[in-house]
């Protein structure tokens, strides 16, 4: 039974959106700016009016006001109460819901410990660092025992390293507390790291909802394919384990050597921007380097997409217009293709 069910939701850009979010699931909404991601969170929280129906555990929530929905919400700007100290910010939800003082103290102390902010309890929020504010906001959202939590780009103001660390910590906490959560994340790689499932939203429509690997290997629409960077999907014929942690994957006429700890790979996804082409023979070892013939050239904004036939495989590459102009590339020309395996996605049998 889904924890959250949205049926025929329409509001602003959202048009007839249907979505099911499972109990204890961590769903990440990904899409370009203005796609309707935040509006969808506001609909779930009841912070905006809408057309359609929202169910929590099969119970209709459309006429339930936000404060009775039991949905916590971590906004992008955090909006910590500036007139309250850290302790009172975290205790706010419990206080307004009338929990006894003893329960409030125990819960707040537990969250201060869990998020490593015990030393901040007396501080006011306006003089905390970005990371500290983020932790306080997370603790405040978790405090009132909500079973559903919404996160609207919660780490957007932090540096990538802190953001990644905090996100991993938060997700572990959400799993431990068995909370159903919906994240809005701008960055697809970040989404992939934490999501049970990813929902791609574009111009107010849900294009695809699937596990991260499914999205990459089976994009259902052109929009999804474009959004995930149109990866080249290679079906692997067989694998040779070269040594511990190194495997040779053979797909048609291509043989790719890559770091891999498992026993076999069924499919490989290589993004176009990880494939380089050169009209002259590049120096260095011939590892993951192939000869191919250009079959198609597609200008897209400031980049050029070039499709190259390598034996039976058609590989899509992407290069800057300036680099393209320097090489005098045209359809039918023979080029060298180099595959850089920066981020590997694969399907195992």
């Amino acid at each position: 039974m889904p924890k959250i069910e949205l049926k025929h939701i329409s509001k602003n850009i959202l048009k007839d959106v249907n979505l099911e979010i499972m109990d204890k699931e961590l769903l990440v909404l990904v899409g370009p700016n203005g796609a309707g991601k935040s509006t969808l969170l506001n609909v779930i929280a009841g912070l905006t009016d809408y057309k359609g129906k929202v169910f929590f555990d099969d119970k209709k929530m459309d006429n339930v006001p936000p404060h009775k929905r039991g949905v916590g919400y971590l906004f992008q700007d955090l909006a910590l109460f500036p007139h309250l100290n850290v302790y009172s910010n975290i205790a706010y939800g419990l206080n307004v819901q009338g929990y006894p003082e003893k329960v409030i103290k125990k819960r707040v102390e537990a969250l201060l410990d869990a998020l490593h902010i015990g030393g901040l309890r007396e501080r006011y929020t306006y003089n905390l660092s970005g990371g500290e504010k983020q932790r306080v906001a997370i603790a405040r959202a978790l405090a009132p025992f909500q079973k559903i939590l919404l996160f609207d780009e919660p780490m957007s103001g932090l540096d990538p390293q802190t953001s990644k660390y905090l996100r991993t910590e938060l997700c572990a906490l959400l799993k431990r507390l068995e909370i159903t959560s919906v994240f809005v994340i701008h960055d697809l790689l970040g989404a992939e790291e934490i999501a049970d499932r990813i929902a791609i939203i574009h111009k107010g429509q849900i294009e695809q909802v699937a596990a991260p690997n499914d999205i990459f290997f089976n994009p259902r629409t052109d929009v999804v394919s474009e959004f995930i960077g149109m990866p080249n999907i290679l079906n692997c014929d067989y694998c040779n384990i070269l040594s511990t942690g190194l495997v040779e994957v053979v797909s048609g006429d291509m043989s790719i050597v890559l770091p891999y700890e498992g026993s076999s790979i069924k499919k490989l996804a290589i993004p176009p921007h990880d494939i380089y082409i050169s009209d002259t023979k590049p120096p260095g070892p011939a590892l993951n380097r192939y000869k191919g013939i250009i079959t198609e050239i597609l200008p897209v904004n400031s980049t050029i997409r070039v499709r190259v036939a390598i034996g039976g495989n058609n590989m899509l590459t992407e290069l800057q217009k300036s680099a393209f102009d320097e090489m005098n590339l045209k359809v039918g020309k023979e080029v060298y293709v180099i595959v850089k395996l920066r981020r590997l996605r694969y399907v195992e049998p």
Partner: protein
Amino acid sequence: MSFKRIAITFSFATLCLYAVLILSLLYFYRGSLFYEILISERTLFSIRLSITTATVATVFSMFFAVPSAYALSRYNFFGKQLVDTILELPMIVSPVALGAMVLIFFNTPYGMTIQRNGLQFVFTVYGIFLAQFITTAGIATRLVKAAMDEIPQRYEEVAKTLGASPSKAFFNVTLPLSKNGIIAASILTWAKALGEFGATITIAGSMAMKTETIPVAIFMRLASADIEGTVVLVLILIGIGLSILYAVRLFTAKTPYV
């Protein structure tokens, strides 16, 4: 002359204008007379009456202003534009005209019924309070609304998602955050009520030791060519006014979080 200097020159010109007016009072200032007039029963009555009525009018104005300002700041409702426009009536219509409107109302059958069966407003202390209330309620609402507009609505949304009802979100979040603005608005409303003259004299008249507020007393002393007495009362009003402005400055000094 640079643009900066021109701008500063204009600001000093404004200062000079008011400084000349204040200093000219000293030409007619008699030290011995100041104390005598200040402690006279009639002056003390005017001060007491002005402070009492201004305080009561301010309390009532704020009682209406805070919820009205919140509604105008946060909600969209039918007639919002009309309410918003009407609030500016005391600013665009002269206080005498407002007073005349009240007098005319009390000459209608409804007004006369109120006067007969309820409170007698015309030519009484209640009239002073009413005059001050109608000239300040709109301005008070406008000032409180400005304070509330500065508080992002997001805080209330967060409070609601944490389980606070709309009223709890208002009392626990919006009200404390706009506290300084509301206090500053109350002080300015009080100062405006204290200096109110046109509507007061039209509704409550100018009876010595009955409806004589400080501005009315100034008018009456001036009308009887008592320049020294006028100077003393004007200085008292200026003293109270400047103290009020200083208090407003203190309360509107930006707190770190707003």
